């Protein structure tokens, strides 16, 4: 019997094994592209905020909004409650704005595009047909593209460099563009929704983001429209010493449906870089948003040098009855992760789901989880969190389930499991449960365990290497979450699981 068959019998995809076999040694996306960049001066002050606003050619109200956030940010202090340790961040030693110089004037054809930028997208595995559009070639969006139907918006350092499939989306009435374009082209929508889910004063990083966000994605799905394709944003930090502050705003009107994917990478550098994003989802009556993230920022080397600080605020507001939101995240990168995608279940019968895999290896630290705020009647939420800790990493699940007095007959189910690989790492669980009426139910379960010796022995006996076997077992452990990812992402995520755990055994 071949290795693959025996594994397939155990219910594990043979592809997983291939994936595990084919993955490279190190962080695959660690290359830096040497592109001429345009920077704003280091540091943040009102002038930088004004500069970012003017670079994006924003209207006056947007600038005021930013300045207001900035003034509030100056009075705030960094949150310290998470179980993460990192040296003090000097917020004045960061570039808040950087963009490839070639983007200042739009290139006319692929030949005019900085070849290095194209090279980057190629390395990231974005098909050539889409590269033209991503590189910002004028008119490239008009060429029909066959095959893969995923509309991509790529954010390179501070600016969005292009959105694909714009035309086809427009035919369906869907608006998918960078947020800077949306501020110009759809100010009424942005004005109506921006900051209504994550207010500019929400928390330290969100406030900073409100002041200095440079770009991000904007999605508007009109009433009754089922978005004809998956939407995707690709974030990449390339320049040195830059912070990436993107802002995503997705609005699903009554009965609308959309699935949105987000991927992130960054080059290997010795310095720590900051990423403080804000994502706001607005879900009206009967609408449905599925938001998936594969976060693979550079995690730093095995000694904890370098890596991205990922301080992200993501929140979904189920405003209408029967609104539905589903967060799925695969967190394998970043030196420090501080992220709690949340659901406000305001409409009656609305539903929130949170599926998460957080893998930390070497010196990585992750403090992540979710908040489920039940306000409407008969609201339901489900949390499945799988934390995997290896090397000297610390992995924390922190979550809140709050059922308000009026949220009668609500339901929550939470499961958070932690897996420890090695005796130098830590796995922690900090759930909060607040039940304020008696017709609702909260159920919470958590376990912590290690990779089962018997399973490992079984795989080893079948001729697998130890790392391969661990990756396989971990993929099995995280199966429930991987299954909730869209197909293409699921494959990538499985590979990532294996890569992230390299060097964790033996």
């Amino acid at each position, binding site marked *: 019997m071949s290795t693959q068959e025996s594994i397939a019998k155990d219910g594990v995809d043979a592809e997983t094994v291939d994936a595990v076999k084919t993955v490279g040694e190190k962080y695959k996306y660690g290359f830096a592209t040497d592109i001429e960049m345009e920077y704003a001066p280091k540091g943040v002050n009102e002038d930088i905020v004004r500069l970012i606003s003017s670079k994006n050619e924003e209207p006056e109200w947007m600038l005021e909004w930013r300045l207001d956030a900035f003034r509030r940010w100056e009075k705030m202090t960094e949150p310290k*409650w998470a*179980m993460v340790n990192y040296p003090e961040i000097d917020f004045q030693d960061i570039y808040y704005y950087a963009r490839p110089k070639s983007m200042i004037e739009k290139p006319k054809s692929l030949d005019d595009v900085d070849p290095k930028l194209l090279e980057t997208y190629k390395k990231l595995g974005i098909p050539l047909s889409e590269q033209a559009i991503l590189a910002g070639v004028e008119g490239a969006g008009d060429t029909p593209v066959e095959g893969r139907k995923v509309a991509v918006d790529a954010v390179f350092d501070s600016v969005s460099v292009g959105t694909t499939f714009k035309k086809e989306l427009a035919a369906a009435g869907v608006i998918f563009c960078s947020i800077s374009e949306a501020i110009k082209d759809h100010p009424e929508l942005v004005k109506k929704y921006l900051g209504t889910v994550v207010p500019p004063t929400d928390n330290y990083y969100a406030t900073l983001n409100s002041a200095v966000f440079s770009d991000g994605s904007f999605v508007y799905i009109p009433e009754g429209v089922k978005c004809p394709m998956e939407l995707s944003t690709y974030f990449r930090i390339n320049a040195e010493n830059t912070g990436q502050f993107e802002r995503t705003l997705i609005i699903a009107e009554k009965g609308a449906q959309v699935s949105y994917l987000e991927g992130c990478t960054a080059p290997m550098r010795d310095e720590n870089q900051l990423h403080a994003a804000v994502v706001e989802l607005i879900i009206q009556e009967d609408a449905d948003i599925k938001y998936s993230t594969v976060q693979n920022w550079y995690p730093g080397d095995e000694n904890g040098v370098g890596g991205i600080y990922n301080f992200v605020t993501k929140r979904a507001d189920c405003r209408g009855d029967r609104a539905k939101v589903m967060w799925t995240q695969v967190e394998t990168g970043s030196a420090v992760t501080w992220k709690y995608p949340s659901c406000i279940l305001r409409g009656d019968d609305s539903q929130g789901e949170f599926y998460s895999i957080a893998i930390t290896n070497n010196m990585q630290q992750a403090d992540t989880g979710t908040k489920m705020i039940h306000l409407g009647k008969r609201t339901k939420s489900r949390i499945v969190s799988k934390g995997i800790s290896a090397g000297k990493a610390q992995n924390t699940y922190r979550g809140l389930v709050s059922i308000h*007095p009026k949220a*009668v007959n609500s339901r929550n189910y939470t499961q958070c499991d*932690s897996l*420890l*690989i*090695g*005796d*130098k*790492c*830590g*796995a*922690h*669980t*900090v*759930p*909060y*449960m*607040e*039940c*304020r*009426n*008696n*017709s*609702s*139910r*909260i*159920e*919470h*379960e*958590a*376990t*912590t*365990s*290690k990779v089962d010796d018997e399973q490992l022995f079984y795989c080893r006996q079948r001729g697998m290497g130890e790392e391969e076997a661990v990756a396989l077992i971990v993929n099995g452990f995280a199966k429930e979450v991987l299954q909730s990812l869209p197909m293409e992402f699921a494959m990538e995520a499985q590979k990532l699981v294996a890569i992230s755990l390299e060097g964790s055994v033996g």
Partner: protein
Amino acid sequence: MGEVKRENLAEALLARHSAPRSGAGWALSARRAARDRVLALGAAGRRDEYWRYTNPAALNGAEAPDVEVLQLDETPVFDGVEKLLITFVDGVYRPDLSDDLQGENLEIMTLEEALEVDIHWASDLFGVFEARGQNPVPRPFAALNTAMAGQGVVIRANGKVTKPVALRYCRENRQSDVLLHHVIRVESGAELTVLENGAGGARLNTVMEVDVADGGSFHHLRAQGRDHTRLAITHIFARLGAEARFKSFTLTVNGQLTRNEVVLDIDGDDTKASVAGACLGDGDFLHDDTIFVTHDARDCESRQVFKKVLKNGATGVFQGKILVKADAQKTDGYQISQGLLLDDDSNFLAKPELEIYADDVACSHGSTCGAVDENSLFYLMSRGVPRKQAQNMMILAFLDEAIAEIENEELAEDIRTRLSGWAERHSA
């Protein structure tokens, strides 16, 4: 709350109690250190993460509230068992209401006496465990207790102690502000059971420091008084040696505010510990169990089992934590907290935490909250059990997992009787 204000409040906390009488050198320095701790830690504040669900204002207040003394004609809990009875009235030891302070395998004296002795084994424990328990989370009320408490008992078990030591806390004064501090050492291979019951004061603050040596066994059973508007903040700081056994169970019925903190340090291999509680609240009632179990040895087992039945606006709080240090391999940690809400006004708030640094462990926690299961009620009613009675059966069944943690069956039965009495009185 600003830092300045918090310090002032800490000073005010110290000022509201009269300084205890002189003692031996070690006692005085322990007190002084505790005083400094109170000032350094500052008072507990509403915005402290550790006081997220319980407002410490009433405990911080200058005056103890005026609490009507509950007059009951029922026999006090644990009355049926043979015991060594020690009575405190409004926080003062009453020899006339107590048995002689002696027993087989037992060294026992009041804290007041012990603190006067120049060389006393209690000097290794008094204030020492409490100080250690201040990290990582400050417990200012415990430090206050060490600094100011003049009353309590000091018990040392040198072998198997057959008769439980029963501490009875009575009340006469409506506004008594009581501090009690007990120091207990269970020697290697010894066994001791300590019972506590009664409200003790309008505002009661207790600290119990327990050292269980290798192979020692300590059982603790407590029933907190039902006086409706009384306040209580209690602390148990325990260190457990190798192959030790520790069991603590608390029954709380009503009382306006109760905060029970338990800090367990498992220091020796192959030790088993259990902390459990059953609580029933009807009305303006807040009950908070805050548990911190640290595993610092191999092959140990710890259990936390807490059940709360709540109605008419009562609030149940559980903050439990299991910390498994890197060398505590093969730890088996279990934690369950459940709330049964009998009506829509009640609240159950839980924060069950795990912090784990060892990989070969099996730790789990569960927490649930909900109403009495309608299907089960229907089943019982279809068998001819009246609704009220069926609900009471369900309540008692719900609480039983916690009661099952009690080692002594006779004492467990006593607790069950009390619980069914409450259920009868409060079912409407």
